[in-house]
């Protein structure tokens, strides 16, 4: 019962957020945070559950963003079609990127993903007819129903719903035979193969799923910002995304949400008067400190905090 109250309370708090503030910058920021949460959730799935690594997630993010932008602006499709196309093409790219992971592990795999991210970034800069190049891609339509433009608050609910759906899908996958096989593969590839489980298929699925979420996040970002330039898709963004997943907690369901929202808002909190020059520096130091002192991430810590507050029994929420 208490768990139910807690869950309902948390959902209400999130849903009501747009009512508390009218500041459109705060709302825009929260929307960005939700986008990052979606992307980081995909990374938690890929790294924490399936044991693969990707330092090129900004590549999928870019593919999703530019595909959706191209479909809506150049081909005149509705936004829904653009977003779905972005997801589909990202997933295909994810399947392709999973091929090196059949053979490579850890550092070697991370190098392949870095190279992938860099290649996509350079294509974004150089394929000017499609992406607009360094001068940018303009005039991407904002979310609307019929002829009514949605407000930032309504977009927040939309994104929140999508985030909830992605976490829910991840939750269902984790507790299926598929998810258990993935956890086994995370512990030991070879042993999993000897149990008659095709790790190749699992790796493809994991890369595909996380790439799909990154593509979704990219497409959502494209329509939120209305303008795309190559800057948000650099290698440093990829490393930020991985940092979000690690800070949130790689083995925890809430890792992506906590890390994505936390690391998007943290620099903004540090951006008060007189500190504008230092906030990015301080952010990276804080992330390093969190990684050193809380290697399991903030997600599990928040969970145990909530447990203490609501006196939940462990057995109730073991599956969280």
């Amino acid at each position: 019962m208490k768990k139910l109250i807690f869950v309902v309370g948390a959902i209400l708090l999130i849903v009501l957020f747009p009512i508390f503030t009218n500041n459109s910058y705060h709302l825009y920021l929260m929307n960005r945070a939700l986008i990052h949460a979606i992307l980081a959730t995909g990374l938690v799935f890929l790294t924490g559950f399936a044991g693969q690594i990707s330092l090129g997630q900004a590549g999928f993010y870019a593919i999703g963003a530019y595909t959706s932008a191209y479909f809506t602006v150049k081909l005149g499709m509705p936004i829904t079609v653009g977003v779905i196309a972005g997801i589909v093409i990202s997933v295909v790219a994810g399947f392709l990127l999973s091929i090196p992971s059949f053979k490579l592990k850890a550092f070697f795999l991370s190098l392949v993903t870095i190279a992938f991210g860099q290649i996509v970034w350079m294509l974004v800069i150089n394929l000017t007819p499609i992406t607009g190049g360094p001068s940018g891609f303009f005039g991407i339509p904002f979310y609307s129903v019929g002829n009514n433009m949605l407000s930032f608050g309504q977009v927040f609910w939309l994104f929140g719903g999508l985030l909830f759906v992605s976490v829910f899908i991840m939750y269902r996958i984790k507790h299926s035979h598929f998810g258990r096989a993935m956890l086994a593969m995370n512990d030991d590839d070879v042993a999993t193969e000897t149990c008659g489980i095709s790790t190749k298929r699992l790796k493809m699925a994991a890369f595909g799923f996380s790439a799909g979420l990154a593509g979704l996040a990219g497409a959502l970002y494209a329509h939120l910002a209305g303008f795309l330039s190559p800057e948000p898709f650099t290698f440093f963004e990829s490393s930020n995304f991985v940092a979000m997943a690690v800070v949130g907690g790689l083995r925890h369901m809430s890792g992506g949400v906590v890390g994505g929202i936390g690391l998007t808002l943290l620099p903004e909190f540090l951006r008060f008067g007189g500190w504008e020059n230092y906030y990015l520096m301080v952010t990276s130091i804080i992330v390093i400190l969190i990684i050193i002192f809380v290697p399991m991430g903030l997600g599990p810590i928040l969970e145990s905090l909530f447990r203490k507050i609501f006196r939940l029994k462990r057995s109730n929420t073991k599956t969280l």
Partner: protein
Amino acid sequence: MLQDILQNIVSGASIGATYGLVGLGVVFLWLTISRINFANISSAMLGAYLFYSFYTQLNLGFFISFVLSIGVIALYGLGLRVFIYEPIRKRGGGRLEFVVATLMLCTFWLNLIIVVYGALPKPFPPVFGGSNDFISLGGIRIPSLYLNIYLVIAILMVFIYFILNKTLIGKSFRAAAQNREAAALMGIDVKVTTSLSFIMATVVVGIAGILLAPIYFVSLELGGGSIGVKGFASAVLGGLTNPYGTILGGISLGLLENFSTLYISSTYRDIISFSVLVAVLILKPSGIFNWKRKKI
């Protein structure tokens, strides 16, 4: 036509050799702790900016500035071990934690440099010869900058060979690289070799930064551009364990870059070299220039 080709070989090989130096930083750390420092390239940027400070801003002369900046970089390498690597290891953080911590370190240094020096590139003093100094050799112009790069790298390689093969500390370094536990049992102080590898890794990349600065200017490009990835690529071509293979890998990467600029297109130069990196990783992850065939 032949002159063009020779000219490109000269310039490609010299830039590639500095990529190889950046790759050496990766190799030295991989040999001892099997970790990759993703802030590897930051040492290059720090080296270039420190040298700029000491030489141009404080007027200390070439030799003193060089030694001072290398000394600071060496201290930084030690600090990397004490403040990043050891705390993470003690608290049970794995490889991924180290990866993310060093990635964040890379961002940190970039932002620190922006705060201290500003984001605009600084001209590098012409200590390795100005842009108009060159030696003509049978119709090819070899800028003295490239000659100096070859010279420094040759000295460095002899020095590294001497340290690794002829001194006791180098022997213990190689022993610890082959088998950490066994080396510790033989009475080798593994902590010293670990510190040594951190120092060697950062110093080599710092020198590479000073050598690259005349080409890329004293700019953020040195600490956040694609040079770092090319350093990783040359380390991979050397199989991550072979220092000399890494230099060769870097040189071949530089040649590949220059010839793809010459024959294909300069915009797709980096895409081609990264595609080659991916192809090598998939087809031959043990490295092309790795004739020792040790464990990866």
